[in-house]
């Protein structure tokens, strides 16, 4: 979509149609999915008939689905905590310390972003087997957490690069030691990148399948639950849960975008209320 947008106006006619086609290709399936979640006559058949909220009623009384949602949220929140708490020191090291092997370290940290999920998943599975652990949500959490450290590191590193280092020097100059400076100046300055990275990791973890597939025990996450049900046949209940996920994702993306533009458009940091309520949600 972004390829079509910044073209000069003269070619607007042909390009407009092209852009419309691309948008249709991207979003038409989603629109169909949403519409059929209200279809009283099951998944097949055109046009949809007997519009109904029945599938949503069934969905809301389906224990297995909601257990899976809960599992996914637990995994995602834990992954956010792990990735941020390990990614921040890594980003700090990349930003301000020079040590032997730094270039190598930087690439190694980014590796999980590039590696196919199958490789990451398989290697983590072999590691878990080697240590004699049983597969469970815990192994999924560890898998997501470690695989997503790279996302946290890149986001926080970008935030640190934009930060005015003179502020930290001012803090030291005013008598705060390094530890006080970190808590009182560095961390508050990073509230925006921390929130952004947290949101990104949360959404990535919520729909992760490849790594999860190798590490899952008896408790399914939502994507695996849906995957498992599809093998037994499609019902509009799947459309209904997918529609809810879609709405939730769009809301998260809009919120993330909102945080980003605020961070860029003004030098002011977030007002106290918003990041706190968000962080409250994470914990």
């Amino acid at each position: 979509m972004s390829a079509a947008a910044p073209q000069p106006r003269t070619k607007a006619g042909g390009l407009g149609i092209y852009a419309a086609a691309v948008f249709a290709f991207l979003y038409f399936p989603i629109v169909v999915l949403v519409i059929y979640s209200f279809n009283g006559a099951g998944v097949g058949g055109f046009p949809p008939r007997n519009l109904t909220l029945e599938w949503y009623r069934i969905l809301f009384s389906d224990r297995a689905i909601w257990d899976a949602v809960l599992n996914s949220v637990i995994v995602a929140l834990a992954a956010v905590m792990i990735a941020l708490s390990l990614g921040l020191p890594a980003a700090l090291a990349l930003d301000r310390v020079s040590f032997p092997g730094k270039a190598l370290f930087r690439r190694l940290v980014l590796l999980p972003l590039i590696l196919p999920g199958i490789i990451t998943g398989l290697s983590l599975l072999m590691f878990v087997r080697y240590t004699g652990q049983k597969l469970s949500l815990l192994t999924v959490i560890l898998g997501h957490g470690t695989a997503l450290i790279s996302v946290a590191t890149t986001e926080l590193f970008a935030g640190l690069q934009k930060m005015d280092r003179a502020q930290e020097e001012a803090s030291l100059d005013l008598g705060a030691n390094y530890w006080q400076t970190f808590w009182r100046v560095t961390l508050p300055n990073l509230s925006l990148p921390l929130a952004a990275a947290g949101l990104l990791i949360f959404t990535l973890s919520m729909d992760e399948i490849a790594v999860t597939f190798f590490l899952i025990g008896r408790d399914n996450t939502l994507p695996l639950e849906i995957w498992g049900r599809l093998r037994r046949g499609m019902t509009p209940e799947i459309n209904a849960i997918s529609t809810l996920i879609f709405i939730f994702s769009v809301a998260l993306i809009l919120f993330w975008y909102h945080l980003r533009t605020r961070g860029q458009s003004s030098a002011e940091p977030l007002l106290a209320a918003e990041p706190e309520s968000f962080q409250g949600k994470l914990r």
Partner: protein
Amino acid sequence: MKTYAKPPAKEWDHDASTTARAGADPLLEVRHVAKRFGGREVLRDISLDVASGEFLTILGESGSGKTTLLRLIAGFEQPSNGEIWMSGERLDTQPPYRRRVNTVFQSYALFPHLTVAENVAYGMRVQGVPRAEIPPRVAEALAMVKMSASAETPPARLSGGMQQRVALARALVNRPKLLLLDEPLSALDANLRRQMQTELKALQREIGITFLFVTHDQDEAMALSDRIALLRAGALEQIASPREIYNSPTSAYTAQFIGQTNLLTAQVSGGTARAGCLLWPCAAPEGPATFSLRPEHIRLVDGASGGNPASCRFRAKLENQTFCGSTDMLEIVSPDGQHLRVRVPSRGILEDEVDLEFSAKDCVRLRDAGSS
């Protein structure tokens, strides 16, 4: 956390007239300090003393190492060689947060997530000053820089000049022995800049804290300082009072950097200096020498002959006359082709040939002269 005893409140009412006194114990001693970044030598063998209560300006072009010297004193960089002492204690081995030195940063570096009052209170908070003591001191400091009305504002809403004042209050509220100012006025427009210069000088007199001020602006340095330390490519070129450094520059670089000057390449022999067709009595040692002659020390006279023996009269061609308000700047060429600048009280348009005179005492012999 700093462990020094709280200074007496009297320190704020310190006697104003303190200036650099020879023989008084220096507050800060910089001894043979050098700084290298990688293989690049940024500072070379810098030694200087700063007296208590003094306003010392470190002046230099960009890249002369002046900011690096400031950062060494603040503790953000470590010297490669040499030592820095303050009040008889070794300073350069201490971390920045243990030094009784505060800095006003060029970018102000206010904390955007705190209000103005919280910014000012920051130093006292982290140093564990008793809670009850903080608000009155914040109020006092903000009143001092006339920013009381903006105490609860986030700094991003303030103009550059106002942020500058807050940065000053944030540093001074900690009652440092030494205040470092890194080109604090360079981001302000000309009018505000002049106003802040006046206020800064008045403030320094009032509170008697030693100021170490970094700038590349020689007019600013002249207007504010008790003494000026001129840096050139990482070395100390000359350190003296503004008058002395202007009237008796020791090098061609200083003479040209501080104000405008004419450089005369002369030969001294038999008590007379000769630069082309210009002759004047001179007691300097025999041999080649370079002299600095300020444009305002050359006068317009009537007639090419006469005058007293301790001066030099000559006739020259006027190439250009620029009106500068109260003065005119003349560009002239002597009969043997030397180009000189002359500043005279402004008058009407002059003729093509003018008669000029300067006194021998105004020709200042420079150290790095002639053959060297």
